[in-house]
């Protein structure tokens, strides 16, 4: 179920004094089962871009095709598209509203017309995916902790059983433990269910540790769409648009400048450890 974005442009507040170009002539394809990160500086158009994936926004020009369905056509069944592409927005816990966690997770599937028996099965399946216990189900979502709230909100989107999951900074404002839990949940989901995942993130470490490919946007334009190693190879280009490479890559680059060449494409701590071990075995000095 590939997502094809063709020559898409989008402008906010067209014709008013607040007119602002958000996206300009963007094209790319995300294939089935891909794990893609979307990175870019604040205001670069990331959030606008993800809202195109399920037709919440319609592009001014160009086309977005999900699973062969053109989202820009008038007769497209949006409900169906939204069940295919689930979006978890920034701070999703702010969208919780029901009396109990159970009812809140059930909101999405109920909107899609699922029966209560089906919903019960879905919730049983979704809850372990986000690492929640069954005893939270009858609690009010507002008495949970921040991390739990967020997981409930993510579960609410997963309950719609999307084939593509888009997450806008799912780890923002969480402590390191909460962050790792959320990220491993997402990775788990991708590995076990084959869900296509698009992750918007500001943390280059998280990106390097989880995804396969990276989409780089800056000022509404697509700068790069490549594998993690290739994108992080050019640290100056990323710095120019207000981004950076993972810390460990920066260390490796510094070492290289000092004459210790560990090789290219090292973006995770594990890869760096391997490279250093290899380097020392080959008789290099640190």
């Amino acid at each position, binding site marked *: 179920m590939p997502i094809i974005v063709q020559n898409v442009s989008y402008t906010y*507040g067209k*014709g*008013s*004094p607040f007119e602002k170009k958000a996206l300009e002539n963007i094209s790319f394809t995300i294939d089935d089962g891909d794990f893609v990160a979307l990175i870019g500086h604040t205001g670069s158009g990331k959030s606008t871009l993800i*809202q195109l994936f*399920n037709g*919440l926004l319609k592009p001014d020009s160009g086309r977005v095709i999900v699973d062969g369905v053109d989202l820009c056509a008038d007769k497209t069944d949006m*409900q169906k598209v*939204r*069940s295919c592409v*689930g*979006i978890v*927005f920034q701070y*999703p816990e*702010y*969208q*919780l*509203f029901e009396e109990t966690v159970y009812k809140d997770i059930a*909101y*999405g*599937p109920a*909107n*899609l017309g699922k029966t209560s028996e089906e919903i019960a099965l879905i919730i049983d399946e979704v809850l372990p995916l986000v690492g929640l216990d069954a005893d939270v189900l009858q609690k009010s979502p*507002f008495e949970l902790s921040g991390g739990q709230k967020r997981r409930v909100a993510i579960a*609410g*989107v997963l309950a*719609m059983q999307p084939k593509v999951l888009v997450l806008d900074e799912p780890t923002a404002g969480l402590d390191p433990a909460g962050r790792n839990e959320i990220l491993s949940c997402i990775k788990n989901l991708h590995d076990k269910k084959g869900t296509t995942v698009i992750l918007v993130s500001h943390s280059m470490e998280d990106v390097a540790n989880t995804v396969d490919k990276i989409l780089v946007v800056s000022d509404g334009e697509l700068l790069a769409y490549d594998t993690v190693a290739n994108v992080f190879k050019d640290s100056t280009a990323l710095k120019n648009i207000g981004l950076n490479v993972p810390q460990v890559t920066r260390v490796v680059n510094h070492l290289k400048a000092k004459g210790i060449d560990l090789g290219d494409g090292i973006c995770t701590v594990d890869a760096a450890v391997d490279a250093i071990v290899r380097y020392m075995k080959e008789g290099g000095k640190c």
Partner: protein
Amino acid sequence: MLKDITLGQYFPLDSVIHKIDPRFKIMFTLCYIVLIFFASSPAGYLAVGIFSFLVIKLSKVGFKVVLKSLKPLLFILCFTAVINLFFTGGDTILWQWKFLKITTDGIINAANMALRLVFLVVGSSILTYTTSPILLTDGIERLLSPFAKLGLPSHELAMMMTIALRFIPTLLEETEKIIMAQKARGADFESGNLIRRAKALIPVLVPLFISSFRRADELATAMECRCYRGGKGRTSLRQLRVTSLDWIALGVMLIFALVIIFINLGF
């Protein structure tokens, strides 16, 4: 859809209307509103129309935006016009069906009311379009300050207004975000009957209320942290100064008022 609500929004442009002292502008707007009710003849409305046209032109906001501000009031506008059209008594009956009748007085009344409402909204939106909320409340605070002796908490009122105005765009943005999030969860706000649609708003309103309370709480804490203790002895960062432009504007306003009064008296 929410982005269409432009009433109460400020357009940061550079024009003579923007530069007029907010105290003057508020008084002018009040004056204008009173004059709308004075002008009850076609000639009077023409004068008001020309004056409004010139002010909009000078403000550089654009007619499209001003007309957009009328959109949310379209229903009230039509409703008032229709009520006036059918239920005004008069001698010359043009059309009648049971208790409904259209008289010439009715038509005139309906047109009068509709025009008045349009000018009312246009006038007050021009004030908010061209005055930043902070200047607006500064102006109100200064204008109300003589009443402080009578026990009117002018500073507190102004502060409440500043905060309320300040949060209109924030809350609109928040609403938009929540609507997006619930739509992504399959919410449907556009179809179904009235009750269904009202019910569909619950998932938007509950998070919105919660976030408003949270924001209010955070703001109160932040203000207290910065030792906010109300208006007593508080000075303002911006001092409002009357310039020659304000006197010119006052002159124009006076001429306009005289024109309306003369027309009304039948000269």
